């Protein structure tokens, strides 16, 4: 229908309006997030987290305020009426249901519909605000970038040119090359275990993997006679000439760090460093299980080993070494297993996440046994590393149930300790004979056992200060003494219980008392079942009571060693009166020199360098001190060339050139501060002050005054 075209157009415009507004809100909230994020990033903490948080919050707030989806068709129609006079102010008629229109409106609406369908409505009025938001976002981005990069806003708050205590490596100095050398090409072939290809560089300073083959190709601009490389001031590697004395090459395997110089026709170059990148052994991190795992009875007897393996070049292999320990005391037996991970390590990746499920029964681990295991990994350089030992132990159920302690305990046992056992034995006997005796007899015997149990309970009850059962409320048949008339204490005693009388109670510790009470409770329950003629049901309680009693018995046991010898009484006057004149007094005499200070040469050099700051000319004595320090520094530099080589260079410049440059002195001093260790604070005495004995006299008088 023709009507539908206009209506669709209005709906489409409404949709366009909503989309544009939502887009605009998104841009504005981006704008807000950018600003908040930038402020926090520059001033508080360098993290973009805040910007990320602010964006959705701002978006939700903007959408909640604007509610673009609430735009109605009426408003669109009104807008169209206003903007396009050819619609003749009737576009809103299109929104009304056709049934409600009067004939005039129908005509108008169909006319408008036709016009509207043909009308091209520009995006401009809808998108204007969107464009504004977009441009301001771009401007804001540029502004924030400029704040950080050009104006350095953070410096406004922290002051500019903050000096920072320098602990970082020495500043990089540009390489100086001998003038004869026109170009250099060094190719480094890393060893096979790294899995890296050959690489080339045109700088003399080099860092190579341990064991890498390094090849120098040096081109000179004039023909030279001899050339060699000097490593660590002692090792010569001759450079070979390939053509007419301008192309030279040499090869060397780099194993240890250090420095080297190029010598051309006897002239030595600057020092260049060779750094060695060592291969570190693989790192194993076991995520599960924990260092000590305890598997309770009833838990599934299995362990999942979950580990992460890392290496700088590649992991070649990894295994689990597991040991099962069986038995107790001296009869422990060990069995070792080697378990492989399911994953293969053929790819030699740098990182692996491995898992292994160990079924304990498969390793023959039984209750009471322990499993020890560790993970061992090997990298491509054949370096091994292993984890700590992890322990998995399984709870021993057999020991819990054994009656060892009771059966083979101390020979001499008090009577009441035997009774509970006897009740159990009798009850078991009764159960066995159940089928062969009459019900009446069975019940009778069960009841008798119950009586025995009660007596036993009462006997233990005495330890807790409980009164005997017969005493409660039992009337006394003695005639009342007339003297006791209106004796309140006596009357009270007659009609009350003397529970928990402290006088009657044994002197037990609270823990033992609690256990004793628990025992009595079990006995109560056992008695109840026996009296109900259910000896089978009574047995668990009886057993429990027995176990508790056994514990009590063990706890109260004290072991006293038997002594057979009674020494005679000691005569004090004879003490220390032995003849000692034959005894020689031991005397020892030693001279121990403190170990020579390794850093002595460097410490002395500090003073010389301090002097150079004011007077930059070396005396011959100072020169000797610096020469010694130079040797020490050379040793340091061969161990850590990256750190100490610039200082060594500077030291050599100081030694060779007459007026020392302050920059060189600074460089060397910095290296010395780094190398030297703090001296120990050893005890020392203070010096006297020249006071013609005044203070001495003062202290003397002070002592007299204090008397």
């Amino acid at each position: 229908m023709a009507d539908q075209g206009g209506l669709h157009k209005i709906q489409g415009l409404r949709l366009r309006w909503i989309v544009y507004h939502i887009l605009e809100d998104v841009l504005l909230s981006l704008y807000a997030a950018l600003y908040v994020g930038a402020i926090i990033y520059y001033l508080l903490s360098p993290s973009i987290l805040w910007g990320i948080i602010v964006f959705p919050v701002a978006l939700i707030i903007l959408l909640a305020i604007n509610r673009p989806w609430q735009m109605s068709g009426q408003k669109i129609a009104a807008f169209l009426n206003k903007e396009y006079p050819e619609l003749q102010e009737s576009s809103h008629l299109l929104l009304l249901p056709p049934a409600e229109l009067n004939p005039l409106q129908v005509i108008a609406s169909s006319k408008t519909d036709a016009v509207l369908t043909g009308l091209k409505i520009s995006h401009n009025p809808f998108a204007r605000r969107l464009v504004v938001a977009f441009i301001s976002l771009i401007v804001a981005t540029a502004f924030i970038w400029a704040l950080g990069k050009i104006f350095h806003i953070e410096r406004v708050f922290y002051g500019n040119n903050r000096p920072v205590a320098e602990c970082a490596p020495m500043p990089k100095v540009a390489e100086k090359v001998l003038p004869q050398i026109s170009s250099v090409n060094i190719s480094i072939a890393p060893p096979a275990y790294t899995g890296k290809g050959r690489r080339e560089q045109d700088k003399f300073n080099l860092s190579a993997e341990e064991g890498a083959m390094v090849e120098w190709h040096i081109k000179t601009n004039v023909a030279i006679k001899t050339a060699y490389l000097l490593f660590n001031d002692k090792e010569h590697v001759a450079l070979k000439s390939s053509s007419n004395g301008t192309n030279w090459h040499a090869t060397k395997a780099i194993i240890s760090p250090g420095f080297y110089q190029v010598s051309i026709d006897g002239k030595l170059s600057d020092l260049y460093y060779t750094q060695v990148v060592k291969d570190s052994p693989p790192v194993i991190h076991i995520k599960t299980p924990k260092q000590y795992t305890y598997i309770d009875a009833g838990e599934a007897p299995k362990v999942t080993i979950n580990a992460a393996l890392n290496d700088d070049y590649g992991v070649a292999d990894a295994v689990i070494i597991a040991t099962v320990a069986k038995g107790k005391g001296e009869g422990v037996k060990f069995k070792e297993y080697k378990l492989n991970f399911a994953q293969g390590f053929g790819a030699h990746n740098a990182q692996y996440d491995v898992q292994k499920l160990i079924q304990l029964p498969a390793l023959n681990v039984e209750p009471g046994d322990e499993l020890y295991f560790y993970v061992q990994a090997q990298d491509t350089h054949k370096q091994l590393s292993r984890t700590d030992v992890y322990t998995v132990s399984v709870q021993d159920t057999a020991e819990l149930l054994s009656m060892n302690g009771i059966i083979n305990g101390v020979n001499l046992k008090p009577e009441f300790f035997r009774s509970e056992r006897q009740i159990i034995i009798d009850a078991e006997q009764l159960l066995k004979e159940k089928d062969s005796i009459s019900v009446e007899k069975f019940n009778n015997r069960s009841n008798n056992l119950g009586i025995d149990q009660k007596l036993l309970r009462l006997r233990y009850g005495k330890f807790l200060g409980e009164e005997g059962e017969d005493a409660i409320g039992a009337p006394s048949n003695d005639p009342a003494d007339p003297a006791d008339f209106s004796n309140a204490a006596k009357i009270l005693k007659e009609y009350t219980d003397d529970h928990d009388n402290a006088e009657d109670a044994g002197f037990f510790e609270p823990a033992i008392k609690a256990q004793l009470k628990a025992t009595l409770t079990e006995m109560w329950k056992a008695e109840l079942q026996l009296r109900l003629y259910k000896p089978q049901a009574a047995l668990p309680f009886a057993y429990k009571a027995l176990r508790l009693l056994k514990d009590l018995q063990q706890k109260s046991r004290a072991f006293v060693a038997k002594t057979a010898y009674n020494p005679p009484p000691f005569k004090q006057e004879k003490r220390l009166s032995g003849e000692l004149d034959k005894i020689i007094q031991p005397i020892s005499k030693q001279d121990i020199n403190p170990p020579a200070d390794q850093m002595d040469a460097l410490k002395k050099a500090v003073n010389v360098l301090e002097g150079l700051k004011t007077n930059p000319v070396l005396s011959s004595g100072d020169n000797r001190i610096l020469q010694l320090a130079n040797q020490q520094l050379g040793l340091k530099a061969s161990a850590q060339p990256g750190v100490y080589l610039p200082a060594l260079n500077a030291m050599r410049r100081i030694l060779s050139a007459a007026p020392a440059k302050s920059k060189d002195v600074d460089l060397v001093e910095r290296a010395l501060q780094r190398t030297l260790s703090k001296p120990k604070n050893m005890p020392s005495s203070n010096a006297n002050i020249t006071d013609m004995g005044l203070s001495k006299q003062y202290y003397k008088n002070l002592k007299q005054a204090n008397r």
Partner: protein
Amino acid sequence: MQGSWIYMVWALCIFMAVLFAWLEYRRANKRFLLLRIGAALVAVAALGCIVLPIKYNSTITKSIQHKNILLTQGFNADSLPDGIDTSLITLDASIKKAYPKVKLISGLDELSKTAPLHVYGNGLSKDELVQLDSLPVILHAAKIPAGVSNISWNDQLKAGEVLRVQGVYNNTSAQKVKLVLRGLSTGLDSIILPPNAQTPFGLSTTPKATGKMVFTLNADTALQGSLPVQIQPVKPLKVLMLSASPDFESKFLKNWLSENGYSVALRSAISKGKYNSGYINIAQFNLDKLSAQTLAQFDVVIGDLSVLSTLSSTESDVLKQAVANKGMGLIVRADSAGKTSWLQKQFPVDRPSGKEPEPASLIINGNKSGSGKLAYGPAYIVYQDGTQPLVKTKERILAGLALYGSGKIVFTTLNNTFSWMLGGNKQDYTELWSVLLSKAARKNDEVKNYIQFSSLPVSNEPVVLQVSQGSSSPIVVNNELIAPAQNADIPFEWNASYRPSNAGWQNLKQGDKISTWYAYPQNEWKPLRSAEKTAATTQYAALHPNRHIVTKQIQQKVRIDVPKIYFYILLLAACTFLWIETKIS
């Protein structure tokens, strides 16, 4: 123009007066006619007087003082008085350049000594103040300049001791300042100071070498000044150890001391009258009896209380004499021996029964950072006046120091410090015993020359050195013989003035002893020096107050404006009368 304006006002007033008078006269009701006309005239006259300036001539008497004003660095131009009778002078060529009106003088002797001197700015140095010849001075001090206004550090150190720099920094800028202590071209310690505040600061480091070193203090990148430090190597002490039985504590202490090159003689009783004696880095001699000669060899005696309290009376007397008169140190290790000994008079020990306290970290010589944990046992020292706690836990004192004549007694209840050594904690063990031994040790024979300065020694500026010396041997500074003056009251104090020509270390030779001191370059510690000058001038001003106030009486003719308020009141009164008169009629 001015004149014609006045005439116009007069003409207008006369016209108005005539008009108002005629209007009053014309009125039908003739009541108060004269009064009304008068009031109208008064109102008009008052109006005219409000508009016109009315002045009268008078003479006043002023007392004007002649002011001599001396401008020094740091004065504020706004604070100068603008009087006729002031003469501005300065000693500083840079001030003359900036203010050409000021008269430049070459020396303080050119000053007129008649009137008191007003000093603006930082003031004068001690040296210049002496030249003023007790002329009264009134100081108008400048504000404290930005930078380090106070500083102090321990410039004489032993190897291993910590260099501590403390001071006050006046930060006048609106930005934070980072103060860095640098040595050997490396930042060693730093602190960030808040803006617009005078903040005390403390920085510390342990110098790693011995000898003369110059540290520097930098604020951000600007150099504040040098911190010259002299670090002496440690000289090993001689220690005598007496123990009641061979025990671990003595054994570890002996090993530790001897491996560091210290001389140790050890005597431990093994039976009645039988001793095990050991001599390390020291010649062998008989140790069975203590004699004055024996003790004279040692700087410190370490002994168990039971050994020291059971010495024979002669030995005990010898020990007392050695401590009190010879300044020997005595370290007493408490044990269960009785409490009556003279050694324990100042250190009552309490040994509460019950559980041993938990191992705790010790505070050694006030070092807040604390040591590793040590089970220190139940015994502790009850504090008494006159003793100094050296080692303590949070609640208990475990070692203390007391003076005994010229020597010192250190008393300690610690008996298992060797467990630190066993546990590999060498550092705490070293710190503890270094403190105990250093505090107790006899002062060595080497006599230190003590040099003090009247002000901060700066190159090309005179400074008075105060040197202590027992004899009157000549003093030579940088190979230049100088003439010192002996202090009249303190005979071993000698004052000499010297002008170092170069900054840096200076030699001072006294007889055959050479000591060194440091002269700072001109551009260092400027705020500190101006603060020093201000302090010196303030002190001088307080000592020489301005007693005779010389003033001159001057008669001066002035024209004074008559206050307008009177005319307003007249106008108001006249108008009020006229208004009321119409109302009541």
